[in-house]
């Protein structure tokens, strides 16, 4: 159900009066913020390593903007009584993180300061998947019942078409180039399919999130996402999505998340009270 005007939750103060609503809403906000935060981190690791200089400019711009989106979602959590963004981004333990597992996955073998054997096919498939999904989820949220979040989602959706178009072009052009390129994409596509099952999940409060009109159901999100993907990918794998490493929405994660969080928090840990 997508709510009508009469059931809107207009402000953080109003949401705080309803414990069930508040808990469900916060869980969704952590999913949105943590997804943006982790995909941005993996993007930032490519800085200086992208296939060509124009791509370095484009990818880092997308990454910076996406990190800004994460900040907006963390700010909404702060308004609802949680800690401030820096704390939420840096201090939360891996098991408290709600990002889907596929988005924390390492870019490849090696380390960016030493021998970064990163994989561009993974990056193209993953970012195309991510931006397609972000569009679907945020479009549903713009019609949702929590006004401050619907407003932010609308704002993000004005900027995000540029991100989606960028990765769609990469996918299409590589897919139509050489056999090698297509095979590499195909391999990463199959891999994504086995690991992406938690992406459209809504976690422990899924039923309330739908019932309270904050966002549509998991099934609807999955259907709309598949439809969005099929506009670009000629043949989607015929099987169901798998959850090889569990569900990030429930707090399951891989060692790749620890690696990401350690690097992310390195500067923060060096001086927690520094003013930037």
């Amino acid at each position: 159900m997508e709510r009508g005007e009469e059931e809107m939750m207009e402000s953080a103060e109003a949401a705080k009066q309803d414990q069930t609503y508040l808990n469900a809403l916060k869980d969704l906000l952590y999913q949105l913020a943590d997804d943006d935060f982790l995909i941005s981190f993996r993007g930032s690791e490519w800085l200086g390593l992208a296939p060509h200089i124009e791509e370095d400019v484009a990818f880092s711009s997308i990454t910076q903007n996406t990190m800004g989106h994460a900040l907006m979602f963390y700010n909404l959590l702060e308004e609802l009584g949680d800690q401030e963004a820096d704390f939420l981004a840096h201090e939360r333990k891996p098991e408290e993180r709600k990002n889907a597992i596929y988005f924390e996955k390492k870019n490849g073998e090696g380390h960016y300061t030493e021998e970064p054997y990163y994989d561009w096919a993974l990056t193209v498939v993953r970012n195309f998947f991510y931006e397609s999904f972000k569009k679907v989820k945020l479009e549903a949220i713009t019609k949702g019942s929590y006004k401050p979040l619907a407003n932010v989602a609308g704002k993000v959706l004005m900027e995000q078409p540029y991100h989606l178009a960028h990765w769609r072009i990469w996918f299409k052009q590589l897919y139509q180039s050489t056999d090698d390129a297509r095979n590499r994409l195909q391999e990463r596509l199959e891999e994504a399919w086995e690991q992406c099952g938690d992406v459209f999940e809504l976690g422990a409060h899924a039923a309330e999130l739908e019932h309270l009109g904050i966002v549509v159901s998991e099934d609807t999100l999955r259907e709309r996402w598949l439809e969005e993907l099929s506009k670009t990918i000629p043949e989607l794998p015929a099987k169901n999505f798998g959850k090889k490493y569990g569900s990030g929405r429930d707090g399951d994660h891989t060692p790749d998340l620890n690696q990401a969080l350690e690097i992310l928090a390195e500067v923060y840990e060096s001086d927690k009270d520094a003013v930037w």
Partner: protein
Amino acid sequence: MNQHLKEIEAVLKTVDDPELPSVSVFDLGMVHDVKVIGSQVLITMVPTFAGCPALDFIKRDVQKAVGDLPWVSDCEVHFSFEEKWSTDAITDEGKTQLKKHGVAPPPENYQPGEEWTVDCPYCGSDYTSMENVFGPTACRSILYCTSCRNPFEAMKPVVDYVY
């Protein structure tokens, strides 16, 4: 009161975007609302791109500039997402200043999802090509003018649209 609003507007026209020197936040269309209650001023602004790291600097600069007016005791600035900034909000003065800075104003009547082109800010030619839709900041793209052979930047169009 009216006089006060005029004074504030004049001040806001002097506060430049930190990443676009000579283009004021007023002319970029970022000032949504100004309220004056006695000696207190409350300014609501709309951010250009959400991921823009300059927002904190803009807030500080606006607070300081307005706070320096002799009759102002307190100036609060907050960014709102209720109203959305769009490239249509840039004033004519803003467009002129952008061009002087070598940045083409965004195309007019842009429809989301459509391809767009702009004229060269230096020579005015429409014989331009897109080099990279992403540029040095989230709100800008990199283009090239085949006529005067200058690379230049343009403000990326964004407009609010209903789903």
